[in-house]
Protein backbone atom coordinates (compact mmCIF):
# COMPACT_ATOMS: atom_id res chain seq x y z
CA UNK A 1 0.00 0.00 0.00
CA UNK A 2 2.76 2.34 0.98
CA UNK A 3 4.80 1.71 -2.17
CA UNK A 4 1.64 2.08 -4.29
CA UNK A 5 1.04 5.50 -2.73
CA UNK A 6 4.60 6.58 -3.40
CA UNK A 7 4.50 5.35 -6.99
CA UNK A 8 1.25 7.18 -7.67
CA UNK A 9 2.57 10.43 -6.19
CA UNK A 10 5.78 9.96 -8.18
CA UNK A 11 3.71 9.63 -11.35
CA UNK A 12 1.77 12.77 -10.43
CA UNK A 13 4.85 14.88 -9.75
CA UNK A 14 6.60 13.58 -12.88
CA UNK A 15 3.50 14.40 -14.93
CA UNK A 16 3.33 17.91 -13.49
CA UNK A 17 7.02 18.61 -14.04
CA UNK A 18 6.77 17.12 -17.53
CA UNK A 19 3.88 19.48 -18.28
CA UNK A 20 5.97 22.42 -17.04
CA UNK A 21 8.90 21.46 -19.27
CA UNK A 22 6.63 20.85 -22.27
CA UNK A 23 4.94 24.22 -21.69
CA UNK A 24 8.33 25.94 -21.71
CA UNK A 25 9.62 24.09 -24.77
CA UNK A 26 6.58 23.42 -26.92
CA UNK A 27 4.35 26.40 -26.15
CA UNK A 28 6.84 29.19 -25.60
CA UNK A 29 9.31 27.76 -28.11
CA UNK A 30 12.18 28.39 -25.70
CA UNK A 31 14.43 25.82 -27.35
CA UNK A 32 14.00 27.32 -30.81
CA UNK A 33 14.32 30.86 -29.47
CA UNK A 34 17.70 30.43 -27.87
CA UNK A 35 19.57 30.29 -31.17
CA UNK A 36 23.32 30.33 -31.01
CA UNK A 37 24.10 32.87 -33.66
CA UNK A 38 25.97 35.98 -34.71
CA UNK A 39 24.82 39.58 -34.54
CA UNK A 40 24.06 41.88 -37.44
CA UNK A 41 22.79 45.43 -37.31
CA UNK A 42 20.97 47.64 -39.79
CA UNK A 43 19.68 51.21 -39.82
CA UNK A 44 16.18 52.01 -41.02
CA UNK A 45 14.53 55.40 -41.37
CA UNK A 46 11.29 53.81 -40.14
CA UNK A 47 10.75 50.37 -38.59
CA UNK A 48 6.94 50.52 -38.36
CA UNK A 49 5.69 48.02 -35.76
CA UNK A 50 8.82 45.88 -35.66
CA UNK A 51 9.33 44.38 -32.19
CA UNK A 52 12.14 42.40 -30.53
CA UNK A 53 11.76 38.61 -31.14
CA UNK A 54 10.27 39.26 -34.58
CA UNK A 55 11.61 36.77 -37.12
CA UNK A 56 14.34 37.48 -39.67
CA UNK A 57 13.64 35.66 -42.92
CA UNK A 58 15.60 34.95 -46.04
CA UNK A 59 13.66 33.72 -49.08
CA UNK A 60 10.71 33.36 -46.69
CA UNK A 61 12.50 30.99 -44.31
CA UNK A 62 13.28 32.01 -40.72
CA UNK A 63 17.03 32.38 -40.25
CA UNK A 64 17.14 34.40 -37.04
CA UNK A 65 15.33 36.94 -34.91
CA UNK A 66 15.37 40.61 -33.96
CA UNK A 67 17.18 41.19 -30.67
CA UNK A 68 16.74 44.91 -30.16
CA UNK A 69 15.14 47.98 -31.75
CA UNK A 70 16.45 51.39 -30.64
CA UNK A 71 17.03 54.85 -32.03
CA UNK A 72 20.61 55.82 -32.85
CA UNK A 73 21.11 59.06 -30.92
CA UNK A 74 23.59 60.45 -33.46
CA UNK A 75 21.85 59.82 -36.78
CA UNK A 76 18.27 59.69 -35.40
CA UNK A 77 17.61 56.53 -37.35
CA UNK A 78 16.23 53.26 -36.00
CA UNK A 79 18.96 50.75 -35.18
CA UNK A 80 17.84 47.12 -35.42
CA UNK A 81 20.07 44.40 -33.98
CA UNK A 82 19.46 40.90 -35.28
CA UNK A 83 20.79 37.49 -34.37
CA UNK A 84 21.29 35.09 -37.25
CA UNK A 85 21.73 31.33 -36.84
CA UNK A 86 25.30 30.09 -37.41
CA UNK A 87 24.06 27.66 -40.05
CA UNK A 88 23.43 30.67 -42.31
CA UNK A 89 26.92 32.13 -42.14
CA UNK A 90 27.35 32.69 -45.87
CA UNK A 91 25.23 35.80 -46.41
CA UNK A 92 26.93 38.12 -48.98
CA UNK A 93 28.21 41.41 -47.63
CA UNK A 94 26.11 43.50 -50.05
CA UNK A 95 22.79 41.92 -48.96
CA UNK A 96 19.92 44.26 -48.21
CA UNK A 97 17.29 44.23 -45.45
CA UNK A 98 13.65 45.29 -45.68
CA UNK A 99 10.74 45.30 -43.27
CA UNK A 100 7.60 43.52 -44.44
CA UNK A 101 4.30 42.38 -42.99
CA UNK A 102 3.17 38.76 -43.17
CA UNK A 103 -0.44 38.85 -44.32
CA UNK A 104 -2.78 41.78 -43.88
CA UNK A 105 -2.83 41.73 -40.08
CA UNK A 106 0.24 39.62 -39.44
CA UNK A 107 3.43 40.36 -37.59
CA UNK A 108 6.22 42.42 -39.13
CA UNK A 109 9.51 40.78 -39.95
CA UNK A 110 12.90 41.62 -41.44
CA UNK A 111 13.53 40.13 -44.87
CA UNK A 112 17.11 39.72 -46.09
CA UNK A 113 17.74 39.91 -49.85
CA UNK A 114 21.03 38.20 -50.68
CA UNK A 115 23.55 40.19 -52.73
CA UNK A 116 26.23 38.93 -55.09
CA UNK A 117 29.58 39.59 -53.37
CA UNK A 118 32.00 36.79 -52.50
CA UNK A 119 32.74 38.00 -48.97
CA UNK A 120 30.27 37.25 -46.22
CA UNK A 121 28.72 39.14 -43.30
CA UNK A 122 30.32 38.39 -39.93
CA UNK A 123 29.49 38.93 -36.27
CA UNK A 124 28.93 42.68 -35.73
CA UNK A 125 28.60 43.51 -39.44
CA UNK A 126 26.25 46.23 -40.57
CA UNK A 127 23.84 45.92 -43.48
CA UNK A 128 24.30 49.00 -45.66
CA UNK A 129 21.27 48.69 -47.92
CA UNK A 130 17.91 48.88 -46.16
CA UNK A 131 14.35 49.71 -47.12
CA UNK A 132 11.94 50.92 -44.48
CA UNK A 133 8.57 49.61 -43.44
CA UNK A 134 5.64 50.75 -45.52
CA UNK A 135 3.46 53.05 -43.43
CA UNK A 136 -0.12 52.85 -44.64
CA UNK A 137 -0.90 56.51 -43.88
CA UNK A 138 1.98 57.70 -46.05
CA UNK A 139 0.86 55.55 -48.95
CA UNK A 140 -2.70 56.84 -48.68
CA UNK A 141 -1.63 60.50 -48.42
CA UNK A 142 0.70 60.10 -51.42
CA UNK A 143 -2.14 58.56 -53.38
CA UNK A 144 -4.55 61.34 -52.37
CA UNK A 145 -2.06 64.12 -53.18
CA UNK A 146 -1.25 62.62 -56.56
CA UNK A 147 -5.00 62.44 -57.27
CA UNK A 148 -5.40 66.08 -56.22
CA UNK A 149 -2.42 67.08 -58.40
CA UNK A 150 -3.88 65.13 -61.35
CA UNK A 151 -7.23 66.91 -61.07
CA UNK A 152 -5.69 70.33 -61.81
Amino acid at each position, binding site marked *: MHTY*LEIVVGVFVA*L*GLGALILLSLQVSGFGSEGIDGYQLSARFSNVGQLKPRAPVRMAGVKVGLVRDVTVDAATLEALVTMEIDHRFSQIPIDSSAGIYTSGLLGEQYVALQPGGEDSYLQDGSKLEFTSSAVVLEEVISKFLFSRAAGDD
Partner: protein
Amino acid sequence: MTAVLELLQALGRRTLVAFARLGRSHMFLFRLCVALPGAVHRPDHIVRMIYMVGFLSLLIILVSGFFVGMVLGLQGYNTLIDFGAEESLGVLVALSLVRELGPVITALLFAGRAGSALTAEIGLMKTTEQLAAIEMMAVDPMQHVVAPRFIAGLISMPLLAAVFSLVGVYGGNFVGVTVLGVDSGSFWSQMQSVVSLWDDVVNGIIKSVFFGFIVTWIAVFEGYETEPTSRGISLATTRTVVHSSLAVLGADFVLTALMFD
Protein backbone atom coordinates in the same frame (compact mmCIF):
# COMPACT_ATOMS: atom_id res chain seq x y z
CA MET B 1 -33.18 55.96 18.67
CA THR B 2 -32.32 52.62 20.27
CA ALA B 3 -33.02 50.89 16.97
CA VAL B 4 -30.39 53.04 15.26
CA LEU B 5 -27.92 52.36 18.05
CA GLU B 6 -28.55 48.64 17.81
CA LEU B 7 -28.00 48.77 14.05
CA LEU B 8 -24.72 50.60 14.53
CA GLN B 9 -23.69 48.17 17.24
CA ALA B 10 -24.42 45.20 14.99
CA LEU B 11 -22.36 46.80 12.21
CA GLY B 12 -19.50 47.47 14.59
CA ARG B 13 -19.61 43.95 15.99
CA ARG B 14 -19.53 42.39 12.54
CA THR B 15 -16.59 44.56 11.53
CA LEU B 16 -14.67 43.68 14.69
CA VAL B 17 -15.42 39.96 14.25
CA ALA B 18 -14.25 40.09 10.63
CA PHE B 19 -11.01 41.85 11.56
CA ALA B 20 -10.41 39.53 14.52
CA ARG B 21 -10.80 36.59 12.16
CA LEU B 22 -8.37 38.15 9.66
CA GLY B 23 -5.91 38.70 12.50
CA ARG B 24 -6.28 35.12 13.73
CA SER B 25 -5.70 33.80 10.23
CA HIS B 26 -2.38 35.66 10.10
CA MET B 27 -1.37 34.42 13.57
CA PHE B 28 -2.29 30.96 12.29
CA LEU B 29 -0.11 31.46 9.22
CA PHE B 30 2.78 32.50 11.45
CA ARG B 31 2.42 29.38 13.63
CA LEU B 32 2.14 27.31 10.47
CA CYS B 33 5.39 28.74 9.11
CA VAL B 34 7.12 27.96 12.42
CA ALA B 35 5.84 24.36 12.18
CA LEU B 36 6.91 23.90 8.52
CA PRO B 37 10.57 22.88 9.14
CA GLY B 38 9.41 20.13 11.52
CA ALA B 39 6.95 18.80 8.96
CA VAL B 40 9.63 18.48 6.29
CA HIS B 41 11.26 15.75 8.39
CA ARG B 42 8.27 13.49 7.78
CA PRO B 43 8.13 13.27 3.98
CA ASP B 44 5.81 10.23 4.12
CA HIS B 45 3.05 12.45 5.53
CA ILE B 46 3.57 14.95 2.73
CA VAL B 47 3.54 12.18 0.10
CA ARG B 48 0.22 10.90 1.44
CA MET B 49 -1.22 14.41 1.32
CA ILE B 50 0.04 15.07 -2.21
CA TYR B 51 -1.83 11.90 -3.18
CA MET B 52 -5.02 13.20 -1.54
CA VAL B 53 -4.74 16.80 -2.67
CA GLY B 54 -2.92 16.55 -6.00
CA PHE B 55 -3.24 13.14 -7.59
CA LEU B 56 -6.94 12.75 -6.85
CA SER B 57 -7.59 16.20 -8.43
CA LEU B 58 -5.80 15.16 -11.61
CA LEU B 59 -8.80 13.71 -13.42
CA ILE B 60 -11.03 16.76 -13.02
CA ILE B 61 -8.10 19.00 -14.10
CA LEU B 62 -7.39 16.90 -17.20
CA VAL B 63 -11.01 16.81 -18.31
CA SER B 64 -11.76 20.50 -17.64
CA GLY B 65 -8.47 21.61 -19.20
CA PHE B 66 -9.23 19.74 -22.40
CA PHE B 67 -12.76 21.14 -22.61
CA VAL B 68 -11.68 24.71 -21.85
CA GLY B 69 -9.02 24.43 -24.56
CA MET B 70 -11.57 23.09 -27.03
CA VAL B 71 -14.00 25.92 -26.28
CA LEU B 72 -11.21 28.48 -26.70
CA GLY B 73 -10.30 26.91 -30.02
CA LEU B 74 -13.88 26.99 -31.24
CA GLN B 75 -14.71 30.54 -30.08
CA GLY B 76 -11.33 31.90 -31.15
CA TYR B 77 -11.64 30.34 -34.58
CA ASN B 78 -15.12 31.79 -35.14
CA THR B 79 -13.89 35.28 -34.23
CA LEU B 80 -10.53 35.16 -35.98
CA ILE B 81 -11.89 33.75 -39.26
CA ASP B 82 -13.76 37.06 -39.79
CA PHE B 83 -10.41 38.84 -39.99
CA GLY B 84 -8.69 36.10 -41.94
CA ALA B 85 -6.37 35.66 -38.98
CA GLU B 86 -7.22 32.08 -37.99
CA GLU B 87 -3.48 31.26 -38.09
CA SER B 88 -3.18 33.20 -34.82
CA LEU B 89 -5.46 30.67 -33.08
CA GLY B 90 -2.50 29.01 -31.38
CA VAL B 91 -1.38 32.34 -29.92
CA LEU B 92 -4.87 33.10 -28.62
CA VAL B 93 -5.34 29.68 -27.03
CA ALA B 94 -1.86 29.47 -25.51
CA LEU B 95 -1.73 33.02 -24.14
CA SER B 96 -5.20 32.84 -22.56
CA LEU B 97 -4.40 29.50 -20.95
CA VAL B 98 -0.87 30.15 -19.77
CA ARG B 99 -1.48 33.66 -18.45
CA GLU B 100 -5.00 33.50 -17.04
CA LEU B 101 -7.27 30.52 -17.45
CA GLY B 102 -4.76 27.84 -16.46
CA PRO B 103 -3.88 29.24 -13.02
CA VAL B 104 -7.33 30.72 -12.26
CA ILE B 105 -9.61 27.84 -13.26
CA THR B 106 -7.22 25.32 -11.71
CA ALA B 107 -7.34 27.31 -8.46
CA LEU B 108 -11.14 27.44 -8.50
CA LEU B 109 -11.40 23.71 -9.18
CA PHE B 110 -8.69 23.07 -6.60
CA ALA B 111 -10.66 25.04 -4.00
CA GLY B 112 -13.77 22.99 -4.71
CA ARG B 113 -12.10 19.60 -5.03
CA ALA B 114 -9.20 19.71 -2.56
CA GLY B 115 -9.75 22.79 -0.38
CA SER B 116 -13.20 21.74 0.78
CA ALA B 117 -11.91 18.23 1.58
CA LEU B 118 -9.05 19.65 3.64
CA THR B 119 -11.41 21.85 5.63
CA ALA B 120 -13.90 19.05 6.25
CA GLU B 121 -11.17 16.64 7.31
CA ILE B 122 -9.45 19.00 9.76
CA GLY B 123 -12.83 20.30 10.92
CA LEU B 124 -14.04 16.78 11.72
CA MET B 125 -10.76 16.05 13.51
CA LYS B 126 -11.40 19.10 15.67
CA THR B 127 -15.06 18.27 16.25
CA THR B 128 -14.30 14.70 17.33
CA GLU B 129 -11.50 16.13 19.50
CA GLN B 130 -8.75 14.26 17.67
CA LEU B 131 -6.72 17.45 17.51
CA ALA B 132 -7.04 17.85 21.27
CA ALA B 133 -6.08 14.20 21.75
CA ILE B 134 -2.98 14.65 19.58
CA GLU B 135 -2.04 17.68 21.63
CA MET B 136 -2.55 15.70 24.85
CA MET B 137 0.10 13.27 23.60
CA ALA B 138 2.51 16.23 23.37
CA VAL B 139 2.42 16.09 19.58
CA ASP B 140 1.96 19.41 17.83
CA PRO B 141 -1.12 19.15 15.55
CA MET B 142 0.18 22.13 13.60
CA GLN B 143 3.27 20.18 12.64
CA HIS B 144 1.67 16.79 12.10
CA VAL B 145 -1.77 17.61 10.73
CA VAL B 146 -1.83 21.10 9.25
CA ALA B 147 1.70 21.63 7.88
CA PRO B 148 1.86 18.48 5.67
CA ARG B 149 -1.45 19.45 4.07
CA PHE B 150 -0.26 22.98 3.49
CA ILE B 151 3.00 21.85 1.86
CA ALA B 152 1.11 19.34 -0.30
CA GLY B 153 -1.21 22.11 -1.53
CA LEU B 154 1.72 24.38 -2.34
CA ILE B 155 3.44 21.62 -4.35
CA SER B 156 0.34 20.29 -6.10
CA MET B 157 -1.24 23.51 -7.32
CA PRO B 158 1.49 24.67 -9.80
CA LEU B 159 1.80 21.13 -11.16
CA LEU B 160 -1.96 20.90 -11.68
CA ALA B 161 -2.02 24.33 -13.35
CA ALA B 162 0.78 23.30 -15.72
CA VAL B 163 -1.09 20.11 -16.61
CA PHE B 164 -4.27 22.15 -17.17
CA SER B 165 -2.59 24.64 -19.51
CA LEU B 166 -0.80 21.96 -21.49
CA VAL B 167 -3.89 19.80 -21.92
CA GLY B 168 -5.84 22.96 -22.86
CA VAL B 169 -3.35 23.84 -25.60
CA TYR B 170 -3.75 20.33 -27.01
CA GLY B 171 -7.54 20.69 -26.74
CA GLY B 172 -7.35 23.91 -28.76
CA ASN B 173 -5.03 22.17 -31.20
CA PHE B 174 -7.49 19.30 -31.52
CA VAL B 175 -10.43 21.57 -32.38
CA GLY B 176 -8.47 24.12 -34.42
CA VAL B 177 -6.16 21.88 -36.41
CA THR B 178 -7.82 18.46 -36.50
CA VAL B 179 -11.48 19.49 -36.71
CA LEU B 180 -11.54 22.98 -38.25
CA GLY B 181 -8.49 22.68 -40.46
CA VAL B 182 -6.16 25.48 -39.29
CA ASP B 183 -2.64 24.87 -40.57
CA SER B 184 -0.73 22.90 -37.94
CA GLY B 185 2.61 24.55 -38.72
CA SER B 186 1.39 28.12 -38.29
CA PHE B 187 -0.63 27.14 -35.19
CA TRP B 188 2.54 26.03 -33.39
CA SER B 189 5.08 28.41 -34.94
CA GLN B 190 3.07 31.59 -34.29
CA MET B 191 2.41 30.36 -30.75
CA GLN B 192 6.10 29.71 -30.17
CA SER B 193 7.19 33.05 -31.59
CA VAL B 194 4.72 35.07 -29.48
CA VAL B 195 4.54 33.22 -26.15
CA SER B 196 7.67 33.97 -24.15
CA LEU B 197 9.10 31.75 -21.45
CA TRP B 198 9.74 34.44 -18.82
CA ASP B 199 6.90 36.87 -19.47
CA ASP B 200 4.13 34.34 -19.95
CA VAL B 201 4.98 30.83 -18.76
CA VAL B 202 6.98 31.77 -15.66
CA ASN B 203 4.49 34.47 -14.64
CA GLY B 204 1.70 31.91 -14.98
CA ILE B 205 3.62 29.55 -12.71
CA ILE B 206 4.18 32.32 -10.16
CA LYS B 207 0.44 32.98 -10.21
CA SER B 208 -0.39 29.33 -9.64
CA VAL B 209 2.05 29.07 -6.69
CA PHE B 210 0.43 32.15 -5.18
CA PHE B 211 -3.09 30.79 -5.69
CA GLY B 212 -2.05 27.44 -4.19
CA PHE B 213 -0.81 29.32 -1.15
CA ILE B 214 -4.06 31.30 -0.78
CA VAL B 215 -6.42 28.35 -1.27
CA THR B 216 -4.55 25.96 1.02
CA TRP B 217 -4.07 28.61 3.69
CA ILE B 218 -7.80 29.43 3.75
CA ALA B 219 -8.72 25.73 3.69
CA VAL B 220 -6.56 24.66 6.63
CA PHE B 221 -7.41 27.81 8.61
CA GLU B 222 -11.16 27.30 8.19
CA GLY B 223 -10.75 23.65 9.20
CA TYR B 224 -8.74 24.56 12.28
CA GLU B 225 -11.21 27.30 13.28
CA THR B 226 -14.29 25.17 12.75
CA GLU B 227 -17.02 25.48 15.32
CA PRO B 228 -17.12 21.89 16.66
CA THR B 229 -20.61 20.96 15.47
CA SER B 230 -21.87 19.30 12.30
CA ARG B 231 -23.34 22.66 11.24
CA GLY B 232 -19.95 24.26 11.94
CA ILE B 233 -18.20 21.84 9.57
CA SER B 234 -20.70 22.52 6.82
CA LEU B 235 -20.35 26.30 7.26
CA ALA B 236 -16.56 26.09 7.30
CA THR B 237 -16.49 24.02 4.11
CA THR B 238 -18.74 26.48 2.33
CA ARG B 239 -16.64 29.41 3.57
CA THR B 240 -13.48 27.76 2.25
CA VAL B 241 -14.85 27.47 -1.27
CA VAL B 242 -16.44 30.95 -1.31
CA HIS B 243 -13.58 32.83 0.32
CA SER B 244 -10.81 31.13 -1.60
CA SER B 245 -12.61 31.62 -4.93
CA LEU B 246 -13.07 35.32 -4.20
CA ALA B 247 -9.51 35.68 -2.95
CA VAL B 248 -8.14 33.95 -6.06
CA LEU B 249 -10.09 36.19 -8.44
CA GLY B 250 -9.10 39.34 -6.53
CA ALA B 251 -5.45 38.34 -6.28
CA ASP B 252 -5.49 37.47 -9.98
CA PHE B 253 -6.37 41.05 -10.87
CA VAL B 254 -3.59 42.45 -8.69
CA LEU B 255 -1.02 39.96 -9.99
CA THR B 256 -2.03 40.57 -13.60
CA ALA B 257 -1.73 44.33 -13.12
CA LEU B 258 1.74 43.88 -11.60
CA MET B 259 3.01 41.33 -14.13
CA PHE B 260 1.66 42.46 -17.47
CA ASP B 261 1.96 46.26 -17.20
